[in-house]
């Protein structure tokens, strides 16, 4: 008999329920409001009262309304059919909902119950299996979607029966397993998993080392991220967080992209809805939407579901990782999630931490980031979840609690700078302030020197150094005046500007420039460093600025041209001529 309760108090979306039996923390319950069931989660228990946060508006709710408890925590429904879907924060299928407006309690099934999937067995009768073992697969869009032993199954099992090749619905039994006590258990294609608990059905989680190509030069060529790595992008509004996230979702080298639109603008999600089904994935030639799943809890959707949305997204990512796939999870923005926690903590009258956020915020954030990672599965296949979150620091101040807590948890830091955004230097990532801890990993250095270029990491360090020196020279020039410094200073500054204009700045809206494959990035970095290693002779400082502007202009025209096209080579030759005009000595070896 499940526990029932009655509403005793209502404070916005915090509802106090008097219960008649056992309830557990984070248990899901439904309020029966005029025939509509409103989903809610237990967030505190005191004597006979459960405090629940309702994932809907509580307008019109009355005391004495009945509440039914389900006996389980918030769960994700995992099975074929997740790919290309648009879910709300609680994994209800948005496309199945009726009408233009979201109605309270309109909870739709996340999967297609009636759809037939072409199933192929992978396990044999008599095989020893455990949670996460692959029993069979169906082709979902283009991903071989593995049907696994449910993650909740404890211990080891023997396969007694597995369905033969054929078409099945998700709730059809596809295998029968026997546990150590001889009990037979039927398995279908669907399993449930509580979203707040990490899925741990893998053998090992080593330090990540495999370079994840994003096509964004300021990331790949200066602060690279790895498969299974973590990164975060803090930036004041208007600095291009969302454009950057969209670029990542379009271009990154991953099998599947999960976008958690967490408390952000609805029109941004609409952009994905309307563009991704049209855009081609350059790697596979398929449409981008075929590898994308969206969890949308936009800023006008119920606040309590916002926190759930990031966990739902992460659980789906971990599920697909267990199939041996590379997943990129993007969350925009984790600050909204933190704010949702703050609103609830405030209503429960908990003692506040800094800026009225709950005291355990740093722990919550680092636990979440820790769920990303590169793993060796039990069958020695590999899979990964790379997580990049954005942070919207209040007032653009990076010393606020969410940014500080995230900085401790994430390994890559992509700092968006207001100054760069103001002067339209996009993407506005400050290459010097930003960092990638992976550059220090010996296993990463070894990996890229084999796969990209032996001097890739060295070049990154050189480029950063040039940028720092350029900045110093710029400050000197500003303090002492154009003619108060040696001409050499102008050269140092303008050489760093070449890196800025040619490598760092990238036009996300230009067909060619939007995404740069690593081969081309390497080529351009070598070219730029070559110019940097050249000494030029100038009569006076006034010659420096126009000369380098010409160099930059030609470089930019190269960026806008197809790689190694006729036009590209034409500009490259033009560049050579310009350099020869003022170069003093031959190009040094790099």
């Amino acid at each position, binding site marked *: 008999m499940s526990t029932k309760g009655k509403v005793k*108090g209502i404070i916005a979306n915090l509802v106090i329920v008097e219960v008649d039996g056992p309830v557990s923390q984070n248990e899901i319950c439904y309020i029966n409001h005029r025939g509509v069931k409103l989903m809610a989660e237990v967030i505190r228990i005191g004597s006979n009262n459960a405090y629940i946060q309702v994932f809907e508006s509580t307008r019109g709710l009355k005391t004495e309304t009945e509440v039914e408890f389900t006996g389980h925590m918030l769960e994700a429904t995992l099975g074929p059919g997740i790919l290309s879907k648009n879910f709300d924060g609680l994994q209800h299928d948005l496309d199945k*909902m009726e009408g233009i407006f979201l109605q*309270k309690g309109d909870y739709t099934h996340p999967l297609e119950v009636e759809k037939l999937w072409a199933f192929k067995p992978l396990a044999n009768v008599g095989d020893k299996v455990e949670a996460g073992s692959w029993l069979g697969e169906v082709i979902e869009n283009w991903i071989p979607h593995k049907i696994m032993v449910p993650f909740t199954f404890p211990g080891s099992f023997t396969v007694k029966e597995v369905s033969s090749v054929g078409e099945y619905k998700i709730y059809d039994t596809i295998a029968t397993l026997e546990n150590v006590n001889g009990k037979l258990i039927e398995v279908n294609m669907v399993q449930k998993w509580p979203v707040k608990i990490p899925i741990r059905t893998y053998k090992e989680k080593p330090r990540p080392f495999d370079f994840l190509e994003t096509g964004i030069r300021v990331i790949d060529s200066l602060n690279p991220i790895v498969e299974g790595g973590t990164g975060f992008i803090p930036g004041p509004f208007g600095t291009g967080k969302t454009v950057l996230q969209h670029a990542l979702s379009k271009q990154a080298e991953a099998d599947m992209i999960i976008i958690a639109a967490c408390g952000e603008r609805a029109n941004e999600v609409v952009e994905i809805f309307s563009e991704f089904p049209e855009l081609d994935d350059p790697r596979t030639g398929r449409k981008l939407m075929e590898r994308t799943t969206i969890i949308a809890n936009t800023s006008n959707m119920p606040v309590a579901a916002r926190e759930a949305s990031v966990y739902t997204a992460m659980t789906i990512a971990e599920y697909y990782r267990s199939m041996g796939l590379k997943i990129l999870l993007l969350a925009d923005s984790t600050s909204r999630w933190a704010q949702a926690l703050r609103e609830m903590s405030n209503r429960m009258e908990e003692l506040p931490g800094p800026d009225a956020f709950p005291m355990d915020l740093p722990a919550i954030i680092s636990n979440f980031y820790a769920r990303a990672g590169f793993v060796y599965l039990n069958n020695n296949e590999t899979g990964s979840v790379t997580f990049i979150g954005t942070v919207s620091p209040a007032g653009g101040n990076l010393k606020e609690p969410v940014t500080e807590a995230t900085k401790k948890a994430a390994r890559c830091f992509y700092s968006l700078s207001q100054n760069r955004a103001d002067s339209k230097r996009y993407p506005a990532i400050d290459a010097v302030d930003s960092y990638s801890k992976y550059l220090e990993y010996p296993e990463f250095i070894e990996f890229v020197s084999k796969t990209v270029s032996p001097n890739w990491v060295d070049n990154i360090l050189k480029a950063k150094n040039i940028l720092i020196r350029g900045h110093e020279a710029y400050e000197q020039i500003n303090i002492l005046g154009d003619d108060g410094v040696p001409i050499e200073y102008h050269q140092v500054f303008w050489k760093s500007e070449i890196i800025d204009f040619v490598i760092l700045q990238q036009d996300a*809206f230009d067909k060619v420039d939007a995404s740069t494959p690593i081969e081309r990035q390497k080529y351009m970095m070598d070219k730029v460093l070559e110019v940097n290693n050249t000494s030029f002779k100038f009569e006076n400082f006034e010659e420096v600025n126009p000369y380098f502007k010409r160099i930059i202009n030609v470089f930019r025209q190269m960026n806008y041209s197809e790689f190694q096209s006729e036009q590209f080579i034409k500009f490259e030759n033009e560049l050579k001529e310009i350099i020869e005009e003022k170069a003093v000595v031959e190009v040094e070896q790099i």
Partner: protein
Amino acid sequence: METTAFQKIYTRIDQITKATCSLRASGIGNEEMALVNDRLAQVVKIEGDLVTLQIFSGTEGIPTNAEVVFLGHAPQLAVSEELSGRFFNAYGQAIDGGPEVEGKLVEIGGPSVNPVRRKQPSELIATGIAGIDLNNTLVTGQKIPFFADPDQPYNQVMAMVALRAKADKIILGGMGITNDDYLFFKNVFENAGAIDRIISFVNTTENPPVERLLVPDMALTAAEYFAAEKNQSVLVLLTDMTLYADALSIVSNRMDQIPSKDSMPGSLYSDLAKLYEKAVQFPNGGSITIIAVTTLSGGDITHAIPDNTGYITEGQLFLRKDTDIGKVIIDPFRSLSRLKQLVIGKKTREDHPQVMNTAIRLYADAANAKTKIENGFDLTDYDKRTMSFAKEYSEKLLAIDINIEIDTMIDTAWGLFNKYFSHAETGIKAELVDKYGKIENELNKTI
């Protein structure tokens, strides 16, 4: 609003604070409206049988034996074509002496649009102001505020934009505006002969501040009626959102909530987002566009109100006085329209994006040159050219008194580039220069 028969009347109030009163009652719904001695109030908290009511106009003079009648519904508005051309207060009651509007009663602050049912905004809103059309193009279904100090003419600019925008309906939500400003809007709309397209919900400084919390929801509920049911393009003007947020903080303070940054409630982001996200492009052609005003204190955008607003809205428009030309301009550095990418170079000429960015970059170079002068340094030839460019750019394109077509704006910018710079200095894609801006001038020969 009148009471109907058989409604239970409560006459014993347990507690009274500055803004709320509490009484014992049963069967009351959350957020339900009530009358306390004929003053409108709303349920904000229920604990057992103790119901807390927020009285919008304050509790001054409310006795413990006041008559309390619950109305059984959340705040609502009667919507119909009759709303057109009318002026209302925060409760949706007529203040222009005309009859009460008859129509379908709709609860305000209704449900959100399912994101998958939205359409991507794609209709450009032309205003004739180059600081907007060229640099920060607006699109139907967008939400964007003016960030302005109180001394700037934001209401005038907003009224001008509204009248030029060719919307089917213009709905004004005035929160804490002065009576003078209210009369200004009324005059401008009447003089433009646009009064039939206008609906106004106004809370002036003469009304109690908490009342204004209802204004934006009233305006947006009316907007949803015309946009979703009548397929019209609706422009909603909200001024001043800073005063709205101040009212939020008053209420949260009286409800003993822990304040977060700048003594604003922790839910400020969600509270503002709920309103701004009503901006939408419906699939059937109707749209709601929101242009708001957020007044700043000393230009500080790190304050919680403009900061949270900036994260919600699709850009912001900054007004600034340019002392070089003595006019108010739309600041090209800090202004931004996020949705412009959907139309520029697509609905407008293909060279629009690059021309826009180049002009702003050169304007930034001029700002650097100015810093050099302030620091007492000599200017290079390039610096001098950027400064002349900046002045002319400001005068011919950024000033808010401009009213020209977008193509003319782009051509004007090309004209300025060619007057002051070489093609290498502008760095525009060669094929665009060939097509739209090719010119043999001195600079292109010598450098």
